[in-house]
């Protein structure tokens, strides 16, 4: 009985001391972490629409693969200049999270990969600008189709990384579709038919 109490006492003391250490660290690091994360997000959004002068704010949320993602309207002195959606696609070994921005004509301005854990050396080439990402620029919703082989009109898959390429293409298309539905008045009816 006495030994049991001793054991309990020694464990409790260790656990409390450890809790205090972790608590103190959390107290000092969490604000730094919070601001760093906020700043990173703002910077990423800013990169997607560099001409926007007003702070970019979330306009609402939409759902893809069972998770909610935000979309944004980038404004310059009160007038919208770009639309941005955060979106995701199911890759080979991870959820690929990305941002896509559209200009007012609903053409893609830029695509940025925020997070991916695809196969090193193969799937992670989706982050390479010249090889893959830059071909999204200037494309419209209907052109977002993945092709295995040479193409200028559509999106060309990276050889050896078709699944990752498709995940990005589909994710971007879902995001663009959402933005077109919300903001691309005239385009809506025409695009609905073809993509279904």
């Amino acid at each position, binding site marked *: 009985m006495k030994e049991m109490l*001793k*054991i309990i006492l*020694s*464990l409790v*003391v*260790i*656990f409390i001391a*450890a809790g205090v*250490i*972790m608590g103190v*660290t*959390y107290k000092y*690091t*969490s604000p*730094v*972490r919070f601001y*760093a*994360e906020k700043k*990173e997000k703002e910077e990423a959004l800013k990169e997607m629409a560099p001409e926007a002068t007003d702070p970019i704010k979330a306009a609402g949320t939409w759902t893809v693969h069972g998770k909610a993602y935000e979309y944004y309207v980038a404004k310059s002195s009160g007038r919208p200049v770009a639309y941005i959606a955060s979106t995701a696609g199911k890759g080979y070994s991870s959820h690929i999270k990305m941002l896509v921005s559209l200009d007012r004509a609903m053409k893609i301005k830029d695509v940025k990969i925020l*997070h991916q854990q695809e*196969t*090193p*050396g*193969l799937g992670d080439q989706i982050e390479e600008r010249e090889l893959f990402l830059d071909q999204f620029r200037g494309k419209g919703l209907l052109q977002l189709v993945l092709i295995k082989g040479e193409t200028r009109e559509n999106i060309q898959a990276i050889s050896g990384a078709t699944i990752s390429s498709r995940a990005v293409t589909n994710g971007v298309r879902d995001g663009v579709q959402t933005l077109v539905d919300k903001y691309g008045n005239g385009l809506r009816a025409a695009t609905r038919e073809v993509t279904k």
Partner: protein
Amino acid sequence: MTKVDYGTIFKNGIFGENPVFRLALSLCPAVAVTSGVKNGFLMGVAVLFVMTMVNATVSLLRKFINPKVRIPSYMFIIATWVTVTDQVMAAYQRAVYKDMGLYIMLIVAFAIVLSRAEMFASRNKFLPSVVDGASMGLGFLLALVLLGIFREFLGKGSLWGHPILGTKPLLIMILPTGGFFAMGLMMGFLNWIDRKFFGGSGSGGGAH
């Protein structure tokens, strides 16, 4: 009481009982993070810090920790220092944390950390334990950097993210499969050196 030989402890951690190449402990993280030199190095630094702190704490508390509950106590001490490392990294090393965040928490389960607490720190005084933790951590760091150099150079043709060759000679090296190849080759090579030049008997040890 014999005089503590810090030199031996230090050499032990880096060569004689190198965690990866000699004790063959913590091989899975060693394979998982060494697809690049940078990741290997940063993981090594995190482990170095955790091991030093854990050994110091365990050694200080060795009289207080009841032997019957020593494993839960050690695990909790390890978890504490890993959490501290994780939070500090998340706050001040954002770029690194993006790549490494997932693996940092796994340090809790590294066999090498627990084994040094149990084998060394719980039986020795404060200073020798700190030296042991630091040199074991350093040995781990060196092993990861060596593997990282080998794999990144062959797999991506670059070092620390800077392209050197311009081609990717052996892509398989940065895939997990290549990690095992690299590990085996490196271990064999070091054993060969040891036998040939230092008359050692090579390493044994089972993988964890």
